């Protein structure tokens, strides 16, 4: 492979037009998780975290944590008073709602990201890995074509033009932001894997013994599984294997869905046993970026045909291979 071939491969990987469907699904999930973050986790303790008499005043954060480094925080530009901060919070919630429904998609994604960035910078101490990954995903979404599918914007655009959408359903565009997200997810698993194999407890298969006994993180009880040496070994080594595959084999189409299935099992297992809200769901939602658009369409058609059997009517219609669209469809 010479330089020209490499350039062509990169060009194809980043810029060959693709359907926006996978990123649209990521957008919807991120919007919902942002709503969970704001309404479930932040709203009940808003004054405690961000009020004028917050547990960590912003002056402390600036002089003890930011030092002279630049941090992004729109709340510093607001007039003093909790009311203004709360109004800013409302803007954040509205942006998350618009993002979920795909209304003013690009604007809502940018506003949502900047609000999230501001809240995260304002108080660093209540941020877990879920917040960090949510922020990174929200940033990547701002650059993406996620608003071109499954969005109110798309519906309004089609109505305005008074025409049917393109035969594939959506405007195709360069999927570089989707690739960025894929690389970011792979990076997460690479780093997690590399850090784990540097430790004795993971190699010896005992890591899940300790991690399942963190009292502050426990969620639902799971007897037998974590009270048995054999299963603890299997889970520890299984975690390593799945994390290894999630940044290596995931790039090969023939293994991808099996690897994703392993990732789903891993994260749902953690979600059941450990109380780490958001992290597992935000990671799982980015898995949509790895799913081929045709497989998503196939899945949607299965759902549609299932519901049509039950005499429910879902929006959109299954495309039949026929004289009008024979070249546009590929039956199994």
């Amino acid at each position: 492979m010479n330089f020209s071939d490499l350039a062509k491969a990169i060009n194809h990987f980043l810029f060959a037009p693709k359907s926006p469907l996978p990123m649209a699904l990521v957008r919807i999930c991120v919007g919902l998780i942002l709503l969970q973050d704001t309404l479930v986790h932040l709203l009940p303790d808003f004054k405690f975290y961000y009020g004028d008499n917050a547990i960590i005043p912003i002056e402390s954060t600036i002089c003890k944590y930011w030092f002279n480094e630049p941090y992004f925080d729109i709340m510093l530009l607001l007039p003093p008073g909790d009311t203004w901060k709360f109004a800013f919070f409302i803007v954040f919630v509205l942006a998350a709602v618009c993002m979920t429904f795909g209304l003013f998609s690009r604007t809502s994604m940018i506003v949502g990201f900047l609000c999230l960035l501001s809240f995260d910078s304002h108080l660093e101490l209540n941020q877990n890995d879920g917040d960090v990954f949510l922020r990174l995903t929200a940033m990547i979404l701002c650059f993406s074509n996620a608003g071109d599918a499954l969005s109110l914007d798309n519906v309004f655009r089609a109505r305005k033009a008074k025409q049917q959408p393109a035969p594939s359903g959506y405007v195709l565009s360069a999927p570089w932001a989707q690739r960025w997200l894929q690389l970011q997810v792979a990076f997460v698993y690479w780093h997690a894997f590399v850090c784990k194999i540097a430790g004795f407890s993971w190699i010896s298969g005992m890591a899940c013994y300790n991690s399942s006994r963190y009292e502050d993180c426990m969620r639902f009880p799971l007897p037998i599984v974590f009270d048995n040496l054999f299963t603890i070994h299997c889970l520890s080594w299984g975690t390593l294997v799945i994390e290894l595959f999630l940044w290596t084999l995931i790039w090969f189409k023939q293994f991808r869905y099996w690897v994703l299935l392993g990732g789903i099992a891993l994260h749902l297992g953690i979600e059941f046993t450990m109380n780490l809200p958001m992290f597992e769901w935000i990671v799982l939602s980015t898995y949509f970026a790895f799913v081929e658009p045709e497989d998503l369409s196939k899945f949607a058609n299965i759902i549609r045909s299932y519901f049509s059997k039950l005499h429910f009517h879902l929006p959109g219609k299954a495309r039949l291979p026929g004289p009008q669209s024979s070249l546009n469809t590929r039956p199994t």
Partner: protein
Amino acid sequence: MNSLTKRLNPDRLLQNLVKVVPIVKPMEAGESTGNSSPPAVKPFGKVDKFLVCTLLFSYFFCVFTWVSPEGPCKDALLYFIKPIAEATSICQSWSVFSPETRNSNYHETALIYFQDGSVKLYEFPRMEKLDYLTRFRREKYRKMFCDCMPWAPYTQFQSDFARYVARANTCPFNEPIMVTLVHNWRLMPPADPNHWVNRSNLPEHTNQTPYHVYYVQPEDMR
């Protein structure tokens, strides 16, 4: 013959086709649709491509540098990268539960000393003592009081935590004068098959280590 006619019935065939679930293949650029209108494709110029490649390269260069092992090379690069990484909050590390898992359980308390010599014990929220719903909604308490407050790089905020506790326990004629933050901990029992301790039966945190003493100032209570 009759059954063959039934099978070849066009209506029935069409119904079966619907059940077979046809797949719509998203089109690649330049692919013929067979319809009058080709798929709409957003244009992407060479300058755009160059900018995107630069952005992605810069991003992953910053991120890889951020997580690379400590050393003079990293220090030199961080001098340029840190301001960008912090302004955009792209700093990240995914070393949770690694390289070694934590081998102790703990919770935080504060001892509040009042003017009259009395002492009050305040226990910061303990997730394991909350119900499922509250535990889920208030997870940020865990992050703040368990993961951050006692440990570097957040030790500089311990005075703020102590001040908040003092303010929350103010009395008009008996003000708090001192707050001590205490780390209550216990090592996890070893995974010994002969003396196995189940997940649901972990020991109490009986060891105590005071780690911050804060003398309350009069202006703190205003």
